[in-house]
């Protein structure tokens, strides 16, 4: 600094001491920040390029977008553990034509915007060969066009009927878990034909999985000519449903159908027992998973649910999967771990059939490949669904007794 131009004031020298001390501390912080910025520019410049061909030792990248927080928080862990079990098994036994799977997992927070960022990252940055998930229907609605544009196959455990091929016309979107329309139809069939109910009441959540499930149920009841006596709404995160259950009881329903996520289901069942609403209670697949029974405790005894995985199924493939899962992770599996487990093996078979990791070729292979997995025979149907398996089961306090298995 040119001191000749500055007018020195009495406090100048003392201030300089303090100034230097403060400036050093702040300069350090500033340097850290600049380093971060510089680092990011470097990362920017070295954008990853290139895709891998199988047979070489470059790993095949697959990305899993799973909900670890948000309305789907019950499911994220199962998605990841199911997929990783399959990936580790495949890699241990030679991989896919010698190349191993590299599984990258992200939390999509059960919402479409976060999922969209993840899918973009998977496509452009990670250069994924295929994408598993999102698992939540609302998120898939928002992002499936991205996969379509990038020509990357997307295999999802999301089940809303709005994701059927005739609605999305997305050649790159496949579903590895039974569609809600199928489950809903079975549920209504059971309610009408077995329970012989005439005055059903429904309690429904507010997100897109719940609202589109409700629309399906309404349609199904229409085909039987039965009118739904009362429909009550609740929001994800609601902990008090006294008003809703009271109104359902007042409406004189003879069966309660639950179309909500797991914690809300537990809240409903606790209140149902408290208010002594003694009608059969039957829920969609969210009511058939451990989170629901854990949170509801004894209130869940007697609840019927449309499950996608039942641990007591004597089918050897199911038992083998359950044992392998228990051995690796120390707990029993739950839906949708089996779906993603199947999905990874399905992808392996498709890549082998296609002989390449090119998205277009894998897509073609997926449309015709057949694989028998935990969920039975899996083959892509006209609605781009790979399976229609489900169970109707009843909770006895410890496990779920299978009342019937579909198909």
């Amino acid at each position: 600094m040119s001191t000749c131009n500055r007018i020195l004031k009495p406090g100048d020298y003392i201030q300089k001491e303090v100034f230097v001390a403060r400036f050093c501390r702040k300069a350090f912080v500033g340097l850290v920040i600049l380093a971060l910025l510089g680092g990011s520019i470097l990362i920017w410049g070295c954008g990853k390029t290139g895709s891998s061909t199988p047979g070489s030792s470059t790993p095949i990248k697959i990305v899993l977008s799973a909900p670890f927080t948000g309305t789907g928080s019950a499911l994220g862990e199962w998605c990841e553990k199911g997929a990783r079990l399959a990936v580790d098994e495949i890699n241990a036994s030679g991989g896919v034509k010698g190349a191993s799977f590299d599984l990258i997992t992200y939390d999509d927070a059960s919402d479409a915007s976060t999922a969209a960022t993840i899918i973009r990252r998977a496509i452009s940055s990670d250069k994924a060969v295929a994408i598993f998930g999102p698992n939540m229907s609302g998120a898939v609605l928002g992002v499936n066009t991205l996969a379509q544009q990038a020509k990357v196959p997307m295999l999802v455990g999301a089940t809303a009927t709005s994701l059927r091929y005739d609605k999305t016309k997305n050649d790159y979107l496949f579903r590895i878990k039974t569609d809600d329309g199928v489950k809903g139809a079975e549920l209504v069939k059971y309610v009408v034909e077995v329970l012989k109910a005439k005055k059903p009441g429904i309690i429904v959540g507010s997100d897109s999985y719940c609202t589109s499930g409700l629309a399906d149920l309404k349609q199904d009841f229409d085909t039987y000519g039965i009118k739904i006596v009362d429909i009550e709404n609740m929001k994800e995160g609601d902990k008090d449903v006294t008003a809703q259950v009271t109104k359902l009881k007042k409406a004189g329903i003879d069966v309660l159908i639950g179309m909500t996520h797991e914690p809300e289901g537990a809240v409903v069942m606790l209140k149902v027992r408290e208010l002594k609403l003694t009608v059969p209670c039957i829920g969609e697949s969210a009511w058939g998973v451990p989170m629901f029974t854990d949170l509801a405790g004894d209130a869940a005894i007697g609840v019927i649910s449309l499950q996608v995985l039942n641990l007591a199924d004597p089918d050897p493939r199911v038992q083998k999967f359950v044992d392998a899962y228990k051995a690796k992770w120390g707990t029993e599996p739950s839906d949708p771990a089996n779906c993603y487990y199947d999905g990874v093996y399905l992808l392996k078979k498709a890549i082998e059939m296609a002989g390449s990791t090119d998205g277009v070729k894998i897509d073609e292979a997926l449309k015709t490949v057949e694989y028998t997995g935990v969920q039975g025979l899996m083959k892509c149907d006209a609605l781009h669904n790979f399976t229609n398996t489900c169970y109707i089961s009843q909770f006895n306090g410890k496990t779920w007794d299978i009342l019937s298995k579909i198909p």
Partner: protein
Amino acid sequence: MRRNLKRIVYGAFLVLILLLPLLSRNEYNLFVTDTAFLNIILVSGLVFLTGFAGQISLGQVGFSAIGAYTSALVTMRLGMPIPIGIVAGVAVSVIVGLFVAIPSFKLKTFFLSLVTIAFGEIIHLLLVNLTALTGGSQGLFNIPPMKLGDTPFTNTLYYYLFLVIVALVILLMYRLKYSHIGREMFAVNDDDVAAEACAINSRKTKTFAFGLSAGLAGLSGALTAHMVGFLTPDPFTLSNSVNFVAMAVVGGLRELGGGVVGGFVLTWLPELLKLKIQGFENYYLMVDSVIVLLVVVLLPSGLGAILFKGLSRLWGEKQGAVTLHNSKSKEGE
């Protein structure tokens, strides 16, 4: 010589910014930067409202949502071209912002923040429940993207468009800061009773501040809607409003460039933290919030303040005559 240094640095910076999209083929990084620009627009409005005028708002995403949904609906249901949609989005946001200003006339920090939280939550609830209008929790899809002729904008084109808009916003802030409106704003910030005594209409000033910040938030929302192509109620929650306020504080509440620094750093920080270590995906958010917390506690004047002060010392500029401190720091109200 120092002045030349300043010109060189600024010039190099400008060149870097203009050439950035061409330096890499990674579309995702470009997309994140585009998002960063949109955040910068919103956060600049917040810096104006909270930093300059001293009004806290924890509901800015509400305005963003209004702008986004309005623009989407106008272009989808009424078939208007996109620029009209965006103007409509901004207009509606500004009008709502003028109304939200009303509680600020009487309420101070904490109580005002509660009212703004309530505002944000009410907007969110309306988005989820007015299904016929907003598509409810499923949201709106197939929002028309911006097009050049017949082809939709690429990430690169969005980059340049947003760059121009951000530059205009900064210019606007600069003109406002050094105008009488800016000075009125700082006066009201420091002590609105005293300001009134100096014949400054604090109500008008506060209303203007809210309106402007709401408009910028609405602009950001509308642009997002067209870039991303779909809208759901999910991102318009309290925690995102909080993130934006954090961006403003980290960037520097009293700095013109506060919005730029905060928006850029805090949009990129979570991305950089998404390291490929297995299992780390659970921890990156935690690390992110720790870093932000450290900056807020140790450097309440923001990174931008350090940056610009450091830069101006580098160039040997005399310290400006007006350095405004938060005079309310020690005595409480």
